[in-house]
């Protein structure tokens, strides 16, 4: 490597300044605030705010709800994109589709949420189509698909956002890992189409895509804009809960908001740590 010692130290300094320092600073401040050691409500060390956070049960339902939403969106997107990539990978490499598939990637979360809202709200596009073809008689007959209890709108928006990414990812894996050759070899060795799918294609695609799948799980788990627009106040996703508590005028909510932020950060850091361990183990094999 051509770099000098001075260069190396400067680079590590920049890395520390932009990654470690904000992380320690932000996490440390949130932790100290949540136990009453800093901030306008400084009372001396106490676990009261943490007890309050767990007492009303909001945090557990919020974490569970976020995990379920992320899990559902990931399962649907991965299944759909894997099917699409396996069927259309040749066209996705060079056809017009190879350009069109990039269009949904240009959608930020807020626009995807707005689009899904316009599609599925009671006066939305789908409701109007249903009315025209006689499936519903009035606007109230259309089911709640946004701001709904089951997070259908949120899951749809996330699926819209991540489906094209996974289609491209699986198409690349199929090409780079020479999946077609493996499939051909398995067929030659008298494997049935079902065996080729379950024993060759799916394990290979899932193993290679696992780090990205986990990363997207974390992204959805902590997403803010989409649940803010398409979610409801109870249950609400983690980021929305934390920001609601931290941005409200009631100062007494601040330590609880920071406690939620600390818990979320710890959960994310743990997932990333295990992801790295699994990745390193896979690299060593």
């Amino acid at each position, binding site marked *: 490597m051509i770099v000098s010692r001075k260069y190396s130290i400067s680079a590590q300094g920049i890395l520390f300044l932009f*990654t470690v320092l904000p992380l320690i600073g932000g996490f440390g401040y949130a932790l100290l605030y949540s136990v009453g050691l800093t901030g306008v409500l400084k009372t001396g060390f106490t676990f009261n705010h943490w007890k309050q956070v767990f007492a009303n049960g909001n945090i557990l339902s919020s974490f569970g709800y976020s995990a379920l939403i992320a899990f559902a969106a990931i399962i649907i997107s991965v299944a759909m994109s894997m099917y699409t990539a396996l069927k259309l990978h040749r066209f996705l490499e060079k056809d017009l589709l190879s350009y069109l598939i990039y269009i949904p990637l240009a959608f930020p979360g807020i626009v995807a949420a707005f689009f899904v809202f*316009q599609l599925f709200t009671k006066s939305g596009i789908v409701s109007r189509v249903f009315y025209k073809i006689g499936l519903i008689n009035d606007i109230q007959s259309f089911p709640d698909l946004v701001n709904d209890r089951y997070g259908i709108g949120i899951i749809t928006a996330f699926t819209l956002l991540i489906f094209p990414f996974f289609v491209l990812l699986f198409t690349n894996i199929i090409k780079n890992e020479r999946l077609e050759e493996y499939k051909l070899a398995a067929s030659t060795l008298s494997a049935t189409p079902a065996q080729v799918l379950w024993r060759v294609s799916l394990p290979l695609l899932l193993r290679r895509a696992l780090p990205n799948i986990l*990363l997207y799980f974390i992204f959805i788990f902590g997403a803010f804009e989409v649940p803010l627009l398409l979610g409801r106040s109870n249950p609400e996703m983690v980021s929305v809960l934390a920001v609601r508590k931290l941005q409200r005028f009631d100062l007494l909510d601040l330590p609880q908001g920071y406690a939620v932020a600390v818990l979320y950060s710890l959960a994310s850091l743990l997932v990333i740590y295990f992801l790295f361990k699994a990745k390193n183990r896979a690299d060593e094999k």
Partner: protein
Amino acid sequence: MKNRNHHILKIVLAILCIVPPCILLLMSFFEVWPFPQLLPDRFNAKAWGYIFQPENRVSTSIFTSLIIALSVACISALLGFFTSMVVAYHKYKKGLLLLTYLPFVLSPVIFAVCLKYYFIKMGLIGTLYGVILAQLIIAYPYATIVFTGFWNNRMLDFQKLALTLGATPGYIFSKLLVPMALPMMLVVFFQCFLISWFEYGLTLIIGFGKVETLTLKVFQYLGEANIFYAALSSSLLILPPIILLWINKKFIYNKTI
């Protein structure tokens, strides 16, 4: 039969890709859209005229978004390039990479509320510089992660060869490494531009409502239940990314792999 199914799937996928931006663009020409009409009686460009009036500050928000995204993309790509080389060849590469991943994967809005105190203390809250700095905390680690893949054994061999042939470190840097990294630098620049261009939560918290980007405008119109203006702002928001992704795919992507 198999070909026919593939053909149907291709058409469905193409429709799924094309229809959403077309609907948003079409809605920006609506004025009144009563239920249960599928399309309004008349279309007009009133929203387009109204939204660009100076008092609505949409053009200002586009300009602000551009300034922030260009600054974040330039600084992240440059810093990422310089630091990734050290990370890639460091004996604790895995540990450094793990540290680099952490700020990138945390929810930006939660990260922002935790860092808000420091931005207030530094006098950066509600300022353009503050928003740029805050977005750098997310975009720079991403740039470093992507660039780390560039510094592989092949690049190390090139450097050793050049040194053996008598090239100075400065010469190797300017005549070998930078030209070879240029396509990837452009990819990273585009990706960081998009990270910044799409950012909402962090900009909302650190910008404190004073730094109005286009994403904040979309949310403002949604809050006012002004769906036609929101559709227009959304169309403006997705246009640059579509162009950038197309350039990325057509001219750069193939050169980097």
